[in-house]
């Protein structure tokens, strides 16, 4: 229960937190019961004080009831009854904690190959991935699978957390050896930022506190690294993409002629006076106003939800996209993509599916499966004829009406789409637009 006396210091601390601009960082973890993932998350949540005392008390009671002592950290993240009964993680769970510097969202996903689709889901919105490696076992398939999928989904920062260091006597040699092996393997990936940390989630070393067992390691703790990852450069601030969600026409007395386009700046930025072009019509105009509830803006940047008005009355509706004339996405009805299949029913070539890309939903079909990708060996299977649940492949798609897309590697939001089965309404696949095999890279692209 809250203390009846409100201390002036607490009020001051709260004021300070309010004044500070915190950033949001989303990261994924993946793993199954034995590799310490739940313990690690439990540790992060407890040590950053995101777990309340009554919740902790509940976990203590459950731990004791099962005949053990102390606090089983893994119980903090246990979700559904079926998961506790079977001792597995089935689905993506989202968890929250914050430090004075950043607010964090963890997408906590299972690691087994049967749950690749959940790993892909968790990775889709993440800025960073914490890849867990058991120091006793070195590189096992599950860690590499998580690293591969994180990279495939365009996560800019990979953190390899070599866990259970307490079980290998906090040995620097073991750490170095695993780091060396991972580096060699990761050369196959196109990953720019991979960092390595030795930790013991169970005892807490190098998670939030440094501990005293690994003086040989001079880098950040895991939390320190998560707080200090440089994420400002991750956003695409070049390519202005504004998919129109709604057309706002209040038609009230005051706003009789108001016509605004509501949506989110998915990448890039836009300012008043900028020349823009609407897709698919190709009609041009200039930005007149950037309207928000709290007042008009001069500029809107990637991530902001705003309402844009244009100088000219041109025909724009939901599903259209407002961009700049000098920086257009591809307007294509045939494109290549990596697809992760998420349904029990295998992907069928030439079956009609719905493709949802930005605010546009169109009919389409898979024209060709070029090859399947084995997420464990990274081998291409050119003989693959279908994609089953949890399988990933490279395909050519054809859609009835063009979509306005970017290559996923260049612009995550602009290159992502989902596939919906029109009969069952289920989401059956997730896709990322790739540069066609036959097309040479654009030298202007970094």
């Amino acid at each position, binding site marked *: 229960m809250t203390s*009846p006396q409100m201390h002036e210091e607490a009020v001051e601390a*709260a004021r300070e937190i309010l004044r500070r601009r915190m950033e949001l960082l989303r990261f994924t973890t993946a793993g199954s019961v034995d590799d310490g993932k739940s313990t690690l998350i439990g540790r992060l949540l407890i040590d950053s004080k995101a777990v309340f005392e009554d919740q902790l008390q509940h976990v203590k009671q459950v731990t004791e009831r099962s005949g053990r002592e102390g606090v089983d950290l893994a119980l903090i993240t246990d979700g559904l009854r079926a998961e506790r009964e079977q001792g597995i993680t089935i689905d993506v769970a989202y968890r929250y904690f914050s430090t004075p510097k950043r607010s964090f969202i963890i997408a906590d996903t299972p690691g087994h190959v049967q749950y690749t689709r959940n790993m892909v889901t968790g990775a889709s919105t993440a800025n960073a991935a914490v890849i867990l490696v058991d120091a006793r076992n070195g590189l096992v398939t599950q860690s590499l699978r998580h690293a591969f999928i994180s990279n495939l989904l365009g996560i800019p920062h990979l953190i390899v957390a070599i866990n259970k260091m307490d079980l290998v006597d906090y040995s620097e040699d073991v750490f170095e050896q695993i780091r060396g092996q991972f580096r060699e393997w990761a050369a196959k990936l196109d990953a720019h930022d991979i960092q390595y940390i030795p930790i013991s989630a169970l005892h807490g070393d190098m998670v939030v506190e440094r501990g005293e067992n690994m003086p040989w390691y001079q880098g950040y703790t895991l939390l320190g690294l998560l707080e200090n990852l440089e994420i400002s450069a991750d956003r695409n601030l070049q390519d202005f993409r504004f998919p129109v969600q709604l057309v706002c026409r209040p038609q009230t007395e005051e706003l009789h002629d108001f016509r605004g386009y509501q949506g989110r700046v998915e990448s890039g930025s836009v300012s008043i006076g900028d020349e823009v072009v609407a897709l698919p019509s190709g009609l041009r105009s200039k930005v007149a106003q950037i*309207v928000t509830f709290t007042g008009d803006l001069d500029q809107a940047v990637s991530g902001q939800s705003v309402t844009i008005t244009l100088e000219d009355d041109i025909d724009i509706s939901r599903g259209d996209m407002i961009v700049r004339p000098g920086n257009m996405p591809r307007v294509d009805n045939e494109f290549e993509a990596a697809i992760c299949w998420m349904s029990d029913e295998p992907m069928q070539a030439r079956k009609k599916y719905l493709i949802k890309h930005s605010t546009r939903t169109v009919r389409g079909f898979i024209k060709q499966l070029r090859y399947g990708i084995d997420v464990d060996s990274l081998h291409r299977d050119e003989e693959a004829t279908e994609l089953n649940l949890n399988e990933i492949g490279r395909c050519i798609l054809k859609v009835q009406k063009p979509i306005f897309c970017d290559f996923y590697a260049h612009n995550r939001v602009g290159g992502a*789409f*989902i596939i919906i089965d029109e009969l069952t309404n289920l989401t059956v696949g997730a896709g990322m637009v790739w540069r066609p095999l036959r097309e040479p890279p654009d030298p202007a692209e970094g």
Partner: protein
Amino acid sequence: MGQILSHLEALEAESIHIFREVFAEFRNPVMLWSVGKDSSVLLRLAQKAFYPGAIPFPMMHVDTTCKFPEMYEFRDRIADELGLNLIVESNTAALKHAPPMNKPGRYCDFCSRNMKTEALLAAIEKHGFDAAIGGARREEERSRAKERVFSFRDEFGQWDPKNQRPELWNLYNTRVHEGEGIRVFPLSNWTEADIWRYIQVEEIPIVDLYYAAERPVIEKGGCLLRADERLMTDEDEVKTEWVRWRTLGCVPCTGAVRSKATTLEEIVAEALTATHSERENRLVDQGGDSMEDKKKDGYF
């Protein structure tokens, strides 16, 4: 404004995007308004999403008929001020079977099943809503941690946690067959601390009961409850204490906390330094998997 949004700006932008997707893709959406602090934030976000237009769908209050009088007053005042299209629905037919309120355990079971879950499902069916927007947050309770932002409900209004649609990027699958529906949670990624910060930054009106005052209370089962005649037995002793509510619900099951926080700043300070979860003071949420079970049945 910086090039990177602050975490509150990012959460706000995400919620606005969700609201707009709902209105664009559903035939007949509704927003559920519980009159609590999360609903107040939700309401502000809805205003922002459609500004300068008005909120284009109705607000529905599923009334258990035993909310705090201050909540009804607040609801009607805000609805009037903002010109909301307010729908109030109650399962009044069930009330004749209601156990006495001074048996809180039994009453809350009755209320939760009949006045909340059943009332909600009946109201959704009556109006033919295909999407119901609510203020639930994933951080609130462990079974909510796996709930989608767009969460599918079958024809019986039920949730199947093991069989949810994958949800990737910000691409939401909004498709349903006749009779099925989607519950939408624009505040999925907000924490209690975020809610309070936002209320303070945005100066969002909330019910007075969130502010501490000297109020008559009784103590039952470790909870401080409003000294309401319907709740009391002869043994109950009325005391006057400095209290406030961290969450608001029904009078019989929502406990107060001792506090002298009379300003928003002090409330936020308490929320940011709280050591106990906000649901601790709710008789209704205690016990292992109760929320998971209720949600499967169609509870919000």
